[in-house]
């Protein structure tokens, strides 16, 4: 079963502390939103979970495995990380080759690589784009292609860094629909609180590298004072509802 156990995790870039004493646990097919203003350490936390930043203090276990160098390959096969900048994540010549990159590296036979690649493309509904050159894709298509690149390894835990950034409303809605369909645990770092409201059952609020609140999304995202105290605003949907109630 997919689990993440983080206890007393701290991280610093040189002398500059980014995360301090972060503790949380997650299991099952939860969808968790990590919210906070710019620079609070959301992306850093995700990068630590997937092993890009291994020099942390504290304890981190992914699917029961301690996040150490010797377990890194297994952890990376169980987790999939979607970068904020999709363009940099896609580096092969066309969509198919990019999505097939991971299963080929994990040594699957070519027939299995094809099956996994087509399945991943199918899951994000871009199978028709498989032969398309990366530079020909729109921003929304690039985002979906970058999600497909991680789905080809059937990850148990999917981590997404600001997935809705630079997407137009239609593509954003499409992304939310697809995220809801994806299996496994999902952790979404975002300051798009409306998207977090739509996709996440649990939300963790971060500020200055610490976890300030951790709880049910619908409860946490209606606490205007708490959000405003940490540089955020109510989701538009909630703000709209509250202003309607005030008018009544």
């Amino acid at each position, binding site marked *: 079963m997919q689990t993440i156990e983080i206890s007393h995790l701290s991280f610093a870039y040189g002398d500059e502390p980014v995360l301090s004493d972060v503790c949380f646990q997650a299991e099952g097919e939860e969808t968790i939103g990590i919210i906070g203003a710019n620079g609070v350490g959301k992306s850093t936390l995700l990068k630590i979970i997937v092993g890009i930043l291994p020099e942390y203090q504290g304890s981190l276990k992914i699917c029961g495995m301690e996040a150490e160098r010797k377990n890194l390959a297994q952890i*990376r096969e169980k987790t*999939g*990380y979607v970068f904020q900048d999709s363009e940099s994540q896609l580096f092969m010549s066309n969509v198919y080759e990019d999505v097939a990159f991971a299963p080929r*590296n994990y040594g699957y036979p070519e027939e299995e690589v094809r099956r996994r690649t087509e399945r991943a493309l199918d899951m994000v509904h871009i199978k028709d784009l498989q032969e398309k050159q990366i530079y020909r894709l729109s921003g929304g298509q690039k985002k979906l292609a970058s999600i497909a690149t991680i789905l080809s390894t059937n990850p148990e835990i999917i981590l997404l860094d600001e997935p809705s950034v630079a997407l137009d409303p239609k593509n954003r809605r499409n992304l939310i629909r697809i995220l809801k369909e994806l299996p496994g645990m999902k952790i979404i770092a975002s300051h798009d609180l409306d998207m977090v409201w739509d996709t996440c059952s649990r939300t963790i609020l971060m500020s200055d590298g610490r976890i300030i609140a951790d709880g049910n999304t619908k409860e946490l995202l209606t606490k205007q004072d708490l959000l405003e105290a940490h540089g955020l605003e109510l989701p538009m949907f909630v703000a709209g509802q509250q202003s309607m109630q005030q008018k009544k």
Partner: protein
Amino acid sequence: MYCNLYLYKEHKEEESEVAVGKIREAIYGIHHMDETASKDRWMQNLHPLAKLLTAFVYIFVVVSFDKYDLPGLAVMGLYLFVLFFFGKFSLFRAVRQMKVILAVSAAVGIANPFLDHSVWMEAGGFVITGGMISMITLMLKGIYAVLESYLLIVSTSIEEICYALQCLKIPKTFITVILLIYRYMIVLLKEAERIMLAYEMRAPGQKGVHWKAWGSLAGQLLLRSIDRAQIVYESMMLRGYDGTFRLIRKKENTAQSLVYGIGWILIFLLYRCFCEYLR
């Protein structure tokens, strides 16, 4: 007055967009070559090893001609003509894209007429010297080699070229370096385009980059392209990359590739050996 000012501004903006335009053109050129190489045509569907070996042998044979053997060398141009025509590649585009390299390779023998004054032919008072002949053969050798390389690139993707190198048992490190340089080149160009655009938007009417900004722009370009290259590398690592590109060829190996490769190589070698007897 207002109209004149407007036209002046428009003219200056056009001038300042030249540098960005050149970078964009280079990026477009690379993308165009990638796209052409991925098309479903007979030339693109040939096995990359057949094309790579043919290109190697062609360039080797072209270079091996004597510096005064202009007729022999001229016939070798037929191969390029056949490939451009039947492969449906545009010679005009090739010349436009490779204009700088073509100019450099054509300029290699430019000093020969001044160094070699031996008379080869005299017609109507006009003397053709050995220096002129050798200059033309050197130019042709350079031009043929560049155009053959172009044909290889536009008909074969970088992954397929590296796959062919892998078949030739070229060290994996060398192949990985080629692929990474190719990826990094695009990253670098895109960053350069962004930086130049940002600069030119704030320096209207300025021709090129002011020398005072060279240092900071070059530094920015390096740092930003390293940042982006780092993301590409992290993305590769997270997807199981361990220093080796697993290059797979999806297309079927056809007898056509065999005929193409062996056929052309035989023609080149036979022609090279017996061209003197043909004259």
